[in-house]
């Protein structure tokens, strides 16, 4: 049999359905916000750790000349090495929608037997058969690849070959193709031969016996292997040793989720404030009943247990709604983020501990939030509880409000009422203002991203399209041929090579691209962080970007540096550090690069078009290709910057979009908070409202008074959100810059359209949130209010 006190609590809940629903919704929204981030983080952590390690990633990769079975076997026998395998990487191009795009083809003797960097078939056939192509999943969109349909692929000068796409597979070790603007494909050595490329393998991948080894120890083993390869008469171009066990983007992932986790916790805290408000409201209506119950023998502990038990039940009900929603949202966002990292969350479940944490927090948050008002309510002396007339003793607000002039008395009353319970008003204000600050901050971030991408593609990268050649040509020939094509405004021929820094201990660092560009290039203008840009008088000057500086301790400003290029060491001086994107890169004048490589020819061209319109530029790209081929140039790839810009912008803006969704969740929490605050306000002033009606206030006046009070709070929150959005924008911009792409925080003060939009949102939220309390206030009859006990 259910105890009467339990019945009372259950019937109270039913009796105040709207308020109960608000409490459940408030908790649910908080849990959905924080839970979604926790689910995303825990799922991605599992996927990137377990998924990445499950592919048995290479501990090191050595690029050398043709690798045969005998060499592999000798390397395998070296101490500390568990396994080795060989691949070949060939650069070519793939025809996508009438445009050639850069293609990177991977070949192996036995893909099915791949043990290092295991590939995960996604759809279609695996491994690739001779004459067919399996596309890497992150390139599918960029390659417009469809299983069963052919793609025209060309390597060097050879005749383009139509290869049927027979499957899609995933290589978790690759940076996403859509991000790199590369079509990744897997082919057999026989297919490579058919494409006219050497079929021999040139990438030696190895894994170490002890997976717990530190980077330095792995590097030593890799260099033992390098020495062995070199002793076999082969030339080693570079050795790459990634951080053991860490996905290349792990730090960025953690940073991204940490920021979003902070928003999740914020949403949870705000919903906690809301629960405090709602439980206080609930108890305010129960003060007299609490007094009666104490008068007939109820102990404070029993009363506290009743209401805290109720809070626990409401929390559990909220969890029933929130946990599945948070799981769906978390899976969706984890899926999106995993795509950025070239992972797939399919087949992975959210860890049980993450769900348990959400259940625990969801159940206990309302108990914790309710604890203070419940204990306070349970401790209220019986005499005071029985004397409760529903009129709050709260103050009349700040002194300045007493001097407000020029407004009607009812409006003045509304303004003063809004400030009567400052703590409660403060919590509501904070919730709404935080939502506003996040919204405006996200708008600013969006604007900054657009400006930064615009800056990057307009001010930093000033060319409209680029052409990569399969062979090298003289700069003069390239520039003359391209410059003669109608529609071309300017052209520069560049060269480039991969280089690696030789560290003090004689071991090479990871390789990076070294771009050779004219000293007075009109095609790029990287912001110089420190030092200077290149000059034509430079003989061995090197400009490194920030990423290379961070990853390579030797590359400090002014440092003398040994670079190994094509196996040959050369001395360089770091003269400047620039910002130029997330990947490690260095720049030197094209003449200096030519001297270092011993090859004065250029292999790429950067072009400015006369017309900015993307369609016209695509047409120019086609005409350029035709003109170049007519003059005997072998064009390897061409790239439209407008397309690159669109792809990059779309993906970056998704992050700002997620933040805006979070701000919407916060405004819902804030709206619920406002509704509860106003309900409480009306309840507490029942007698006061009765008095107003007794002295002639009409329905409209009461309605306006309550709505005006809500609007005072909402507009105050809007005004507070504007200055709060400035530090929010800085934090978001800096975090985003650290994680995704350096963002110039161009927009600190929100745009007037954004501010007006947010004002519209808070006014609307206020009107909706106050509608029910205002209606309730008009239902108070004079007689009932004055007799209100």
């Amino acid at each position, binding site marked *: 049999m259910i105890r*009467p006190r339990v019945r*009372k609590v259950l019937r109270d809940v039913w009796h105040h359905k709207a308020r109960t629903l608000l409490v459940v919704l408030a908790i649910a929204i908080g849990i959905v916000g924080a839970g979604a981030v926790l689910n995303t983080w825990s799922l991605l952590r599992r996927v990137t750790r377990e998924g990445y390690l499950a592919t048995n990633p290479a501990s090191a990769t050595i690029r050398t000349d043709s690798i045969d079975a005998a060499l592999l076997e000798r390397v395998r026998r070296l101490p500390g090495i568990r396994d080795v395998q060989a691949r070949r990487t060939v650069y070519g191009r793939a025809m996508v929608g009438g445009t050639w795009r850069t293609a990177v083809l991977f070949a192996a003797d036995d893909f099915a037997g791949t043990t290092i960097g295991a590939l995960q078939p996604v759809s279609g056939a695996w491994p690739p058969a001779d004459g067919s192509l399996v596309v890497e999943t992150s390139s599918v969109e960029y390659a417009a690849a469809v299983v069963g349909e052919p793609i025209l692929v060309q390597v060097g000068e050879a005749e383009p070959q139509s290869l049927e796409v027979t499957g899609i597979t995933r290589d978790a070790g690759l940076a996403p193709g859509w991000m790199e603007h590369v079509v990744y494909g897997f082919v057999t050595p026989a297919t490579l031969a058919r494409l006219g490329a050497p079929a021999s393998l040139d990438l030696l991948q190895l894994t170490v016996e002890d997976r717990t080894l530190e980077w330095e120890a792995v590097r030593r083993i890799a260099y033992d292997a390098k020495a062995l390869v070199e002793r076999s008469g082969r030339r080693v171009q570079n050795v790459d040793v990634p951080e053991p066990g860490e996905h290349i983007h792990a730090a960025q992932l953690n940073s991204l989720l940490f920021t979003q986790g902070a928003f999740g916790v914020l949403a949870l805290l705000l919903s906690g404030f809301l629960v405090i408000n709602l439980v206080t409201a609930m108890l305010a209506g129960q003060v007299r009943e609490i007094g009666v*119950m*104490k008068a007939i*023998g109820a*102990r*404070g*502990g029993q009363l506290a247990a009743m209401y805290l038990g109720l809070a626990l039940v409401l929390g559990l009900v909220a969890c029933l709604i929130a946990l599945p929603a948070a799981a769906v949202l978390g899976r969706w966002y984890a899926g999106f983020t995993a795509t950025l990292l070239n992972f797939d969350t399919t087949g992975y479940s959210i860890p049980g501990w993450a769900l348990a944490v959400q259940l625990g927090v969801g159940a206990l948050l309302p108990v914790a939030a309710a604890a203070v008002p419940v204990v306070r309510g349970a*401790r209220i002396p019986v005499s005071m509880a029985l004397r409760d007339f529903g009129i709050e003793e709260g103050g009349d607000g700040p002194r300045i409000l007493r001097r407000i002039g020029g407004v009607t008395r009812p409006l003045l009353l509304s303004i003063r009422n809004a400030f009567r319970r400052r703590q409660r008003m403060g919590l509501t204000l904070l919730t709404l203002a935080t939502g506003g600050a996040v919204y405006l901050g996200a708008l600013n971030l969006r604007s900054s991203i657009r400006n930064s991408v615009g800056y990057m593609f307009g001010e930093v990268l000033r060319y409209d399209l680029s052409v990569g050649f399969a062979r090298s040509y003289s700069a003069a020939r390239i520039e003359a041929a391209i410059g003669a094509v109608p529609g071309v405004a300017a052209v520069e021929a560049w060269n480039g090579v991969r280089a690696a820094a030789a560290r003090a201990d004689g071991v090479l660092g990871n390789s990076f691209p070294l771009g050779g560009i004219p000293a007075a290039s009109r095609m790029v203008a990287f912001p110089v962080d420190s030092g200077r840009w290149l000059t034509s008088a430079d003989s061995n000057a090197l400009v490194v970007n920030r990423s290379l500086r961070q990853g390579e301790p030797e590359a400090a400003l002014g440092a003398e540096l040994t670079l190994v290029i094509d196996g040959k060491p050369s001395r360089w001086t770091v003269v400047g550090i620039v910002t130029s994107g997330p990947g490690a890169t260095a720049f030197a004048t094209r003449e200096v690069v030519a001297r270092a490589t011993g090859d004065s020819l250029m292999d790429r061209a950067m072009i400015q078009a006369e017309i900015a319109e993307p369609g016209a530029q695509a047409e120019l790209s086609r005409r350029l290709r035709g003109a170049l081929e007519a003059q005997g140039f072998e064009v390897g790839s061409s790239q439209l910057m407008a397309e690159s810009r669109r792809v990059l912008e779309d993906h970056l803006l998704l992050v700002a979009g997620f933040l805006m969704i979070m701000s919407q969740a916060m405004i819902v929490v804030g709206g619920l908070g406002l509704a509860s605050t106003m309900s409480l306000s009306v309840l507490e002033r029942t007698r006061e409202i009765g008095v107003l009606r007794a002295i002639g206030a009409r329905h409209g006046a009461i309605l306006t008074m309550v709505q005006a009070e809500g609007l005072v709070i909402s507009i105050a929150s809007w005004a507070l959100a504007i200055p709060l959005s400035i530090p929010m924008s800085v934090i978001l911009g800096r975090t985003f810059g650290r994680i995704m792409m350096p963002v110039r925080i161009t927009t600190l003060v929100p745009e007037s359209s954004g501010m007006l939009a947010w004002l519209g949102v808070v006014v609307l939220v206020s009107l909706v949130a106050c509608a029910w309390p205002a209606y309730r206030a008009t239902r108070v009859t004079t007689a009932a209010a004055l007799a209100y006990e």
Partner: protein
Amino acid sequence: MHPTSEALITLKNVSRIFPGAAGPFSALSDVNLTIDRGEFAVVVGQSGSGKSTLLGLLSGIDRPSTGEVVVGGTAVHTLSEREMSPWRGKAVGIVFQFFQLLPTLTAAENVMLPMDFCDTWKSGERRSRALALLERLGVADQADKFPPKLSGGQQQRVAIARALANAPALLLADEPTGNLDSKTSEAILVLFQDLVRDGQTVVMVTHEQSARHLASRTITLCDGRVVAND
């Protein structure tokens, strides 16, 4: 049943002073009073004379500023808040002017509530006891109705049944007829008289002149002092 000479209530030099904006206000001053078991005492006096304050001190709802309040051998003024509620639940039944039934509980459940809080009677017996009390007060047919569906008189009868739920030694009633029509008031007063006849000690604050005739003792308060006790 007639009053015994055994004192149920003893007040010694009790004063109750409230702080106020215009300075301390003395609601009760140096009150000395003894009420025996089985008595039906009514407390009368003008508004502000200290009647309700006296009742508050007897029930432990309020505490004296000075003096001693002993009810059924318990020095009420020495009890902590934690001790007060269970003592009050078992030793005292309170009837309020505005009934103060919990609106989301049925009449029977309202009566069962003190038994639930004080853990008196076995849980299986509580409903039958509640029904018996409602029967005794003439509202057994209203047992499963919610208070808002009952008339004022019916609500007050249910409230009295609730006050009797834990068989308290003392029944305190604060203006129990103040919110009822005269006919119903008369019936409620007769009901109190019946309870006293069955051995219940009742102290009632009232404005009803007729109550004086039914009571065994009338205590008259004026400006916080007992001016008559006969």
